[in-house]
């Protein structure tokens, strides 16, 4: 069942890199878990900690990388991540949005996202927000100051608003928007079309019988 997303007002943590891949978001050794939870502590593991991490270890005693922006005290409690182009490229691991959400982030703002990550985010109630390069530049400027920036991401109005009159609108598919706003069970929705699926199969058996042999 998908988590709802309606509106988020929170601190923004600026991660000024492009092409952030899912191997960085949640490294492969943690994908051995058969659970949906437990990934937040290992979000951006290779950048966040100075010592190598393995599943099952006590991560609270690991050496923190003070130069990594998520470890900067100014951004403690951030709920919105700001990044550059092609965020979430690489593997299809849904552990990436799971880790981001469990860390406490609710939305990611970037000029572009990789397709599979983008898709996986919606399935879990994480909102990926695409703004223009110029808008993202402005946000990096605003977020990089001594006083951290708070933004509001409103899904209903599809608006991001912030300090110094910052306001930007973003696009979103109507279906995804509805699912997020209402926290819908997508499988349940699709099963409402069970008759259409069966009708397709019956038709397809005539056209391409080799595809539907048991």
């Amino acid at each position, binding site marked *: 069942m998908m988590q709802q997303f309606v509106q988020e007002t929170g601190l923004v943590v600026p991660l000024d890199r492009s092409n952030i891949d899912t*191997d960085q978001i949640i490294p492969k050794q943690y994908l051995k878990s058969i659970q949906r939870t437990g990934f937040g502590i290992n979000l951006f593991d290779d950048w966040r900690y100075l010592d190598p991490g393995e599943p099952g270890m006590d991560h609270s005693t690991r050496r923190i990388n003070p130069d990594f922006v998520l470890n900067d005290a100014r951004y403690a409690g951030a709920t919105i991540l700001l990044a550059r182009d092609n965020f979430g490229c690489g593997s299809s691991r849904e552990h990436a949005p799971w880790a981001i959400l469990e860390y406490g982030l609710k939305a990611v703002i970037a000029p572009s996202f990789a397709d599979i990550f983008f898709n996986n985010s919606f*399935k879990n109630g994480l909102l990926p927000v695409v703004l223009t390069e110029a808008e993202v530049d402005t946000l990096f400027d605003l977020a990089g100051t001594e006083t951290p920036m708070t933004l509001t991401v409103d899904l209903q109005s599809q608006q991001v608003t912030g300090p110094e009159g910052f306001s930007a609108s973003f696009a979103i598919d109507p279906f995804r928007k509805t699912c997020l706003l209402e926290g819908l069970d997508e499988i349940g929705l699709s099963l409402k079309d069970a008759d259409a699926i069966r009708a397709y199969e019956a038709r397809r058996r005539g056209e391409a019988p080799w595809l539907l042999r048991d």
Partner: protein
Amino acid sequence: MAGRTLYDKLWDSHLVTQRDDGSALIYIDRHLLHEVTSPQAFEGLSLAGRTPWRLSANLATVDHNVPTENQAAGVSAIEDPTSRLQIETLDENCDAFQITQFKMGDLRAGIVHVIGPEQGATLPGMTVVCGDSHTATHGAFGALAHGIGTSEVEHVLATQCLVAKKMKNMRITVTGPLGFGVTAKDVILAVIGQIGTAGGTGCAIEFAGEGIESLSMEGRMTVCNMAIEAGARVGLVAVDQKTIDYVKGRPYAPSGQDWDLAVAAWADLQSDADAVFDHEVTVDGTVIEPQVSWGTNPEMVTGVSGHVPDPQMIDDPIHRGAIERALKYMGLKANQSIDSIRLDRVFIGSCTNSRIEDLREAAKVVDGKRVADSVIQAMVVPGSGLVKEQAESEGLDVIFREAGFEWRDPGCSMCLAMNADRLGPGEHCASTSNRNFEGRQGAGGRTHLVSPAMAAAAAVAGHFVDVREWL
């Protein structure tokens, strides 16, 4: 009315219902499963009291976690308890839901994107999905194939459909002929170098032109495999006689009357002459040379005669910063020549390059030679038990072993280092895999993406060399 692209045709023939909001339900013919992205999906299915919609659409195997040494000892002998549990969980789920699975040690088991085509479980005109981004591989057969997340794995299990939105059409025409000694891997790396890691985002890429048509089916799989490294979930190649010849007689391929019907239907699996693409790119295949990646994403690549770039020559500050960071991570200097990069390890394997032709190309290069003393480890990991068996029947294992390579059991292995096969910090690896991201092959490891022949030559020389001079 303009003609349709191959992608348009595949989409149209799988459309179950188009919704008013722009989304659609598309039907999935083949669902491949592996141990990493499925456990939470099976759990969700059970919790909701649902069962698989059509069992025969599913085929599972274990690949990401499996050890590549002594698989004969069985799952219980796997040392890493978390890997063992994940493999046992897939075994249990497949048993419980009665899904066909090739378990570890089964001759038919191997990397999911190798075994699908090998078994004829991937067919032209199908939709194929798997919880793995390299599912694009199967597009080499004129199938609509792409990676999905775990929620979608559950969705496909429960409904045999995906909620999808139509992608844009992109065609990449690779002119030919390709130069002597230039392989499919060099072609796709050069394409990514040209269009970038996000060049195909939102698109289904059809690869066309003499440079693609001249490739074998295995070569086409290598090209489509890395469509995702160009940002595209889908890579496609039109069906031709090579496709049909490859599929014929495989265990899951249609036979008898079904075969004749299928072959007749597959004749239409190409873009119409008057089809319109949203994006068209032409790559001059005649000038592609063997490629070597120098950076931390697949677009950071150049020809073997080239040099590492100088960030000072880059105006755009974000691009410059990315190159500076990559060179620092990779331990390389600006303007350093590619052939001066020394290797610590060599990995020949992965869903990109672990098929029999890949192993033949590499074996041809190392035959009668020795891995350089400076190389700590050189390993060959066949893509499946059947590839391994075939290679052994041709004596390739002996060639590799005598040259100083390790000859392993099938699996994903050092491509993503989920099992024990991995790089140490700072080590340079010539790898036939698909991703050179930071830490991909082990924390601090430095990956250079190359073809099997280039990896083999680098193993012998201890540094990159132009393999064309050895052929």
